[in-house]
């Protein structure tokens, strides 16, 4: 597996965790009403989307590099 493949895998896992963090912070916000947690949830969700967008752009940019 090349660095390209591992990077895509890493970005995929990171975005999944980012959505997980968003869910955790959101649940925590509903329990406490702390707006800092709502901000953290928003930040995590946006980061997750940002990572996916970055991953797609990265794949397009390094089309010529092999996956192995």
């Amino acid at each position: 597996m090349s660095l390209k493949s591992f990077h895509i895998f890493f970005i995929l896992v990171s975005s999944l965790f980012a959505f997980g963090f968003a869910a955790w912070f959101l649940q925590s916000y509903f329990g406490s009403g702390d707006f800092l947690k709502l901000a953290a949830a928003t930040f995590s969700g946006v980061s997750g989307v940002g990572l996916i967008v970055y991953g797609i752009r990265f794949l397009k940019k390094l089309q010529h590099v092999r996956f192995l």
Partner: protein
Amino acid sequence: MQIPHTIEHHPETGLYNAKVGIWLFLASEVMLFGALFTSYILLRIGAPTWPHGWEELNIPLATVNTVVLIASSVTMVMSWASLMMKDFKKYKMYMGITVLCGLIFLVIKAFEYGAKFEHHHFPSTNNFFATYFTLTGLHGLHVIGGIIVNAYFWGPGSKMWKTEPQRFINRIEVAGLYWHFVDLVWIFLFPSLYLL
């Protein structure tokens, strides 16, 4: 003595030897961290009470550290891509940022450890802090190792670019694979220790 298959692919593996080597090393690392994660799970399941990570640990600092490490993975891969596009100046910039991100991670971690010690939380305090310090400490040692290797490739090791460019690109790829593994471990450590 000539080291074989540093650039050209080995006929049996289809890869250059350093890549096979790093994946074998990373497989052993998966076993090491896997054993520690398993110990953590078993200790936690077996304990009558276990503190919540978010009550004991500093989540904002750990979140910043997570962002820093993800950013360092992006700059690491950009440094490799820059070399493939034969842009050495950009390589130096991205690799320099990667090293800097690693250092920022360690400084933040040092602040976190300092706060724990101030509150008299040590590995001997309870099983929670024992696993916290073991896992994050071992991960921190891996970050230090990565910083040393990356700093070498940023500085004196980059001379190889002039003599054997493809071999140097392969070295950066191998260093990048290691760095990604270290970052991936943190991505699993953060929710396991801090959020659950």
